[in-house]
């Protein structure tokens, strides 16, 4: 056995670019959260909470990194059970906490803890990676595809109970990216896209007719439907969803090339933008730092995603590659959806922008995802 040099061993264990890009993003995000919350009551307290989220996130990062991901395959049953519990938990009396019309938070004795659907994403990635990797890189039998769809449907079904449409879409995106990496045939893919599209329209149609039948919101709430429809027709609900979109676009657009300067965003600081430190943090960034600030962010994301892709490619087995692809899918979709909604390209759904949005659950989850990538990276040569 060849003894590796110290630095060599370090590079085996640590993917330096991944750490650098994520540190840069976390730093950038912290600056933006600081700017966005500066004018808010209890702003400094929120910055502290943001820092605490980062600190807490180091725990799952370290655990996932230290843990050999290949051993997770043996834990399939308990993991599925845990994920199911996490997704159902907000609906369990005494554990749920309602905020913004959805019961997607877990609380104990009334203390809001975290959004269980966030860590559930990682468990879902690990579980589905195991399922897809069992097809040995080829998904050419309908049965295999249906099996994956069954997992996805289960997860999405539980999420829609909360209901949290945005997170549901993240699960769909994760699955699709992993299917591409896992070798799904092109025509299957087209069929699935079609089924998904029909399914989405079907859900909306069935949901609204159920709502009419029972005269109440059965699954999706009316405001969620409005958010989806306002994307097609911004005049539909100008006071609420349309208003947010219009204000966000004005903020970003008025940022121009170089922005108005940190803390000088008139739109965001004058409270035109709701949720400006969480879901709409990009509006603050776009307004205050302009196109240059936005390009910097997109550049960092590109670097992060390409690094994740490189880690996937370097994996010693398909399982690890699929985990990395799942993480990439999660980030990519959240970036697309979050930034896309603030500029009017995507429907408005509450999804945090990775590493940028204020919110501990998401930060902890994203750091856990880094841990998973590092675990795949550090074990790329096998043992």
């Amino acid at each position, binding site marked *: 056995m060849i003894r590796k040099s110290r630095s060599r061993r370090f590079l085996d264990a640590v993917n330096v670019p991944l750490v650098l890009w994520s540190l840069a993003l976390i730093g950038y995000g912290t600056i933006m959260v600081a700017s966005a919350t500066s004018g808010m009551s209890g702003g400094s307290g929120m910055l502290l909470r943001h820092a605490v989220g980062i600190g807490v996130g180091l725990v799952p990062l370290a655990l996932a990194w230290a843990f050999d991901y290949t051993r997770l395959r043996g834990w399939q049953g308990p993991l599925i059970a845990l994920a199911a519990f996490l997704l159902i938990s907000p609906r369990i009396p005494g554990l749920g906490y309602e905020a913004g019309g959805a019961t997607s938070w877990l609380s104990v004795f009334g203390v809001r803890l975290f959004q269980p659907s966030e860590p559930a994403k990682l468990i879902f990635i690990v579980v589905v990676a195991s399922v897809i990797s069992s097809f040995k890189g080829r998904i050419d039998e309908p049965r295999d595809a249906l099996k994956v769809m069954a997992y996805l449907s289960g997860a999405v079904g539980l999420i829609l109970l909360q209901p949290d449409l945005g997170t549901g879409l993240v699960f769909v995106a994760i699955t699709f990216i992993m299917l591409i990496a896992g070798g799904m045939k092109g025509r299957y893919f087209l069929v699935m896209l079609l089924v998904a599209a029909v399914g989405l329209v079907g859900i909306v149609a069935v949901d609204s007719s159920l709502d009419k039948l029972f005269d109440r919101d059965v699954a999706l709430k009316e405001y969620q439907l409005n958010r989806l429809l306002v994307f097609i027709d911004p005049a539909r609900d100008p006071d609420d969803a349309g208003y947010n979109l219009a204000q966000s676009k004005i903020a*970003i657009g008025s940022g*121009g090339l170089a922005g108005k300067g940190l803390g000088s965003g008139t739109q965001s600081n004058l409270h035109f933008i709701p949720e400006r430190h969480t879901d709409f943090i990009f509006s603050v960034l776009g307004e205050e730092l302009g196109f240059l600030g936005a390009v910097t962010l997109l550049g960092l994301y590109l670097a992060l995603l390409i690094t994740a892709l490189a880690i996937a490619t370097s994996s010693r087995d*398909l399982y690890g590659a699929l985990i990395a692809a799942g993480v990439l899918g999660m980030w*990519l979709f959240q970036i697309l959806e979050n930034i896309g909604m603030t500029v009017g390209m995507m429907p408005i759904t509450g999804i945090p922008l990775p590493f940028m949005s204020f919110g501990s659950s998401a930060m902890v989850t994203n750091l856990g995802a880094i841990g998973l990538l590092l675990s795949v990276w550090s074990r790329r040569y096998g043992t």
Partner: protein
Amino acid sequence: MATYRQELKSRFATLGIIVVVVLTALLVRLWTMQVLNGESFAAQAENNRVREISIDAPRGEIYDRNGVALVTNRSALAVCVDPSDDDVRDMIIRAQDSDSANDPTRHETEELFGEFASMVGVTPSDVLTAISDVSQEALRPRVVAIDVPGDVVAQLLERQTDFPWVVVEETSVREYPYGSLGAHVIGYTGAISEAEYEQSDEYAGYELGDIVGKTGAERQFEGVLQGDKGWRRIEVNASGKSQGVVSEQEPRAGNDIQLTLDIEAQRVAEEQLADAIAEARRQGYASAKAGAAVVVDITTGEVIAMASAPSYDPSAFLGGISTAEWASLTAKESEYPLNNRAIMAAYPPASTFKVVTAIAGLEAGITTENTTYTCTGRWTDMGTQWPKWCWKRAGGHGTLSLRSGMKNSCDTVFYEIGYEFYKRKLEELQAQSRAFGLGSETGIDLPGEVDGRVPDAAWKKAFNENYPEYQMWLPGDTVNMAIGQGDMLATPLQMACLYAGIANDGTVMKPYVLKSVLDSEGQPTRTTQPSVLHDTTVSDASLAVITRALIDVTEEGTGAGAFAGFRVNVAGKTGTAEVKGKDDYAWFCAYAPANEPRYAVAVIVEQGGHGGSVTGPAARNILAQLLGEPLKTIRTTDQSR
């Protein structure tokens, strides 16, 4: 393993492409928004955060012909409610909500505004009404009370924590140094109505809630008196709450105007009108409550005084008039004090019209100064079945000339002339009436003028469209018209202009009240030039006959009692109009000095009895004021018509 590793590479290349495509799409979108359209978004952002509130401009002031201030402005403290306060906003939103079930309850209103309302002297529901006025600009503080006592304002400001939504603003309101004097000419102001707003020129920049002239000169010269608004740009947050003033532009006050009124003559005219009404009642005419008096300058047409009774106090309209006050000002029982009877009411002119009949007769050659007539008190030329009576029924006036017929206001003389006109079928009496401006508006620069009526065959046919049996013009129609009765109607201003026209060698000047518009230094920038309204072709000889006859009236005739001892020659005529179902209306029209005429005056008291004893003395004292003669209380009698 090796095979799918190869395949993996191409799949990961696909993923890489997806990543690049997604990020590029976002990049392109951001480039479009921030770099290509950044400026337009920046403009939107500016609008979004800055709201403009207009600041009212002080209205121009109004002066009389000698520069005496009739209407000025004073600053007053207005206690307002700030609509951007959260509690107030909640109430406004709920009050304006179409769902009445969500309306603020009496209890809630009382709880929020109760103490405040009682401090400023209104009711909580008044406050709710004021704040939920949808016509007001969203951020404009809602005025709840004006002229709140200083100690109350001080208390309110001290207790800002209890009433965080109270805003005290300095505002400018109309002040009337002479109270109700000249109210009908000056007019009053009030908040622009929705109809007025719809009709207003968009460049005038009116907004709902603005104060505009409603009647009189205030309305007529609104465009001059209304200044240019200022504005205040206020930074607001997403919920519309003010964050501070960004910039402001001071308003520019409206132009001042100078009226042709002489406030002292106006005062006398109003007092004399009131005295005439009181005198009529003393004489037993209990229904005498209303009337008008108007004085014009014969050579220019300037209105020196214009009085209408009953009158009103224009300051009642400041800060909004209460429903009860408005109801009383527009009620029949109160005789419609807002109406300017000098131009808005038309009456049968009665014997004061005989001057027109005489002029027309002289011009037509059917009478001369010394043509003799015989009055027996009963006139039957149209047939014994259609007898007409002179006001002096018992014995009549005997034999008399046109001139003495005028002096004694003998009806028989004018029946005769009228009947001649009827027989000629040329409607010359109507033509002469119109030549002096009767039957059409004088075009005075005041709103609301009516045109009166000169009846003729065509009018009668049209008027009785649905009653064929009444359509024919009969001899009695012309005969009645000859004594100013029947369907003849004229406004007091028209009568003053008629007498002014006779005095002015047959030229009627157009009456007006705006002498000039003043600039900010008080210098006239625009002065009304006198203009001819009607130029008659009446011969000087005919006018001389009339003047002599009218002087006879005040020296020896029906007006002699009123003008006894008056040192200036006055050419005047009494009138007693019969109005069906009412007491007689007392008229007096005159011009003076008769030999060198300067002023023409017309006075009427509705249901006041006889001109010689009621309106004659009023006209005498008005002329006395203008001509430097002493004013006198006169008690006299007159039985003429």
